């Protein structure tokens, strides 16, 4: 999880981001004085004068806390936004040890649980979130069109609500305060080379198929690698888990033993930990099938090498499905007064559409697709959100072409993908035991 962020995105982004910030600096002074009345949020002039000295520090992983997004927010809102990237554990350590140095912590479900339990964050008032009612019920109610979204692992809904502003306990059901505001999410799957794999892959068990001996790879981030392995074990019929996101010791043993047996038989060419490694493994032909992240598939495609993100829709017997993840924004406890108001403006800005369109071009999604749609053309929105064939060339956020007319996004529309989630990124109760067994797999 920690290094998902992809230097790929970032290095392409930095040049553009620098340009954006230079431009925004020039415009900054003017924007604060004159544009306040016409800004996205329509704030009054006095407000604009009062907030111009405010600085918000947003800290988290690079695929969620993005410089270009912060620059745009700063331009639209008139106060300063500082984006800092740390990997998942370093970020959480920072929130705990230096809480005053952070304003907006980037939180995944499990981090939100830790943050609330440690009293690091204050509840976000639901009624101050303008687009709350337009948020997908996947997040607000844990369901979509009457169908319950998987609760294996920590679904965003599961870690979403607290009863009061100062609560230190997450509660079930919809309440007036939120622990974090979801802002970017996606679901992960297997990636494969269609030129080297002779049939479409739609099941996780292919990862363990001896056909791909010495040509498969799995990701070596224990918390999520174990879930990819569990999906494959379940798909192969080894075991039915009660909860892949919170396994018992016996379930962990079954999963790790299967991995060790496969490793000894030479199934895995490698394991990978960073975005770049997964791209290199796939592009160089060292592996033909592996667990993968969406932008990595795009990066392989951008090298002119065919790569497909396997659509692993859930089956009636409960097998298969994606591993979902979601990052949100919290409000640190120390925020108050004008700074808290500014933080709420910042949170609301994320749902105003610009950010939703930006992350969509990476292959990620916004919880409020309705506003994102306004910032994309019909072709883009159709391709990224609705799973329609591209009518024209599709470009990434920095303008590089990544799909030809007629191409269809793997896995279809975001609704199709998200109603097919099997489990969510998590940290298990038996985490310590799991990490130890995972290391045994690596040392085997």
């Amino acid at each position: 999880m920690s290094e998902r962020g992809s230097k790929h995105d970032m290095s392409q982004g930095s040049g553009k981001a620098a340009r954006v910030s230079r431009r925004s600096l020039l415009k900054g002074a003017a924007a604060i004085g004159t544009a306040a009345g016409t800004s996205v949020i329509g704030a009054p002039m006095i407000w604009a004068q009062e907030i111009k000295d405010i600085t918000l520090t947003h800290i988290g992983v690079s695929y969620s806390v993005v410089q270009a997004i912060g620059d745009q927010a700063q331009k639209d809102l008139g106060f300063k936004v500082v984006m800092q990237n740390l990997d998942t554990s370093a970020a959480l350590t920072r929130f705990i040890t230096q809480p005053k140095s952070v304003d907006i912590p980037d939180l995944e479900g499990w981090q939100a649980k830790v943050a609330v339990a440690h009293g690091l964050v204050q509840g976000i008032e639901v009624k101050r979130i303008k687009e709350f009612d337009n948020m997908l019920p996947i997040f607000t109610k844990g369901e979509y069109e009457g169908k319950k979204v998987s609760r294996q692992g920590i679904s965003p809904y599961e870690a979403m609500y607290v009863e009061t502003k100062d609560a230190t306990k997450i509660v079930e059901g919809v309440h007036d305060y939120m622990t974090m505001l979801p802002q970017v999410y996606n679901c992960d799957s297997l990636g494969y080379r269609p030129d080297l794999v002779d049939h479409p892959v739609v099941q996780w068990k292919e990862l363990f198929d001896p056909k791909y001996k010495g040509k498969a790879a799995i990701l070596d981030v224990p918390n999520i690698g174990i879930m990819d392995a569990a999906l494959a074990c379940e798909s192969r019929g080894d075991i039915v888990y009660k909860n892949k996101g919170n396994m018992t010791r016996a379930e962990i043993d079954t999963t790790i033993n299967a991995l060790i047996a496969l490793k000894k038989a030479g199934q895995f060419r490698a394991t990978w930990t960073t975005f770049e490694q997964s791209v290199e493994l796939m592009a160089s032909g060292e592996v033909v099938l592996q667990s993968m992240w969406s932008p990595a598939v795009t990066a392989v495609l951008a090298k002119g090498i065919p790569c497909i993100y396997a659509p692993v829709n859930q089956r009636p017997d409960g097998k298969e499905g994606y591993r979902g993840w979601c990052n949100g924004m919290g409000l640190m406890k120390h925020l108050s007064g004008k700074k808290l108001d500014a933080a709420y403006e910042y949170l609301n800005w994320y749902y105003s559409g610009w950010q939703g369109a930006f992350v969509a071009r990476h292959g990620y999604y916004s919880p409020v697709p309705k506003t994102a749609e306004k910032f994309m053309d019909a072709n883009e929105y159709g391709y990224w959100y609705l799973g329609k064939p591209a009518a024209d060339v599709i470009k990434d956020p920095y303008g590089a072409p990544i799909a030809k007319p007629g191409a269809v996004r793997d896995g279809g529309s975001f609704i199709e993908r998200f109603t097919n989630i099997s489990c969510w990124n998590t940290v298990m109760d038996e985490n310590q035991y799991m990490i130890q067994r995972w290391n045994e797999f690596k040392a085997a």
Partner: protein
Amino acid sequence: MVPARTRLTLQVLPLVVVLLVFFVFPLLIVLAVSFFHYDDMGMKPGFTLENYAAVLDTGLTYRLYWSMIKFAVMTWACTLVIGFLVAYFLVFHVRSKLIAIGLFLVCTVPFWTSNIIRMISWLPLLGKQGLINSALVGTGVIHQPLQFLLFSDFSVVVSYVHIFTIFMIVPIFNTMSRIDRALFEAARDAGLSRLQTMLQVVIPLTRNGIALGSIFVVTLVMGDFYIVKVLSGGGRASILSAVYDDISTLLFPQAAAQSVFLIIIVMLMVGIILRVVDVRKELVDRQ
């Protein structure tokens, strides 16, 4: 006039302060944390031996040490042979001192780029579609690419040897160049063959450098995290990768206990090396 003793103290003081602040103090914190309690994503000050028990109680720890010690020994053997021969050549076979120093500098040229680049440069060479495999397949020597070349113990040791040999060359070169050349004549007069001279004169006189080089190489391998990870394709875990995995889910006390244990083991290894060669005594004797 300041007394010699005070002067010495003043000279040593800056280094002592730096070591205290940046080495001893952080180490004490790690030591303290290794005794803390852990529960539910947080650590609580206290005193428990649970973390050490967790580290020592699993076969995993021993397997990790076994695999890293294996790497350390293989790397040490290769770097020793290569490092010794290179140093020997530079000191005794290159007549001009200037050229010797020039060639010595050439040995350090790879260090002008970063460790990571030197390590990663092995990937396109050893890969399935890498230079060696394509050459062998292209010339018809083999039909299937050799898988063991990359993401294996082999590739890990190759990279270690590549990156760490210089740490062997430098101290051996240093001690070797202080050997009095008249000893060679004396050896020849005494009727020693070239091999005997090497075994009975050169090696004993360079053991100081060999010991220092060995300490560098062994500690570097034992403390490695990244080379083993990348060049084994994630297929081999190291002691530090276990520590890293602990830290990534905030299991700080256990990570600290594992680290303290590693320090003890590496100190023992260094102790054994120093037991064989008393570097300190020899350095003092020289003066």
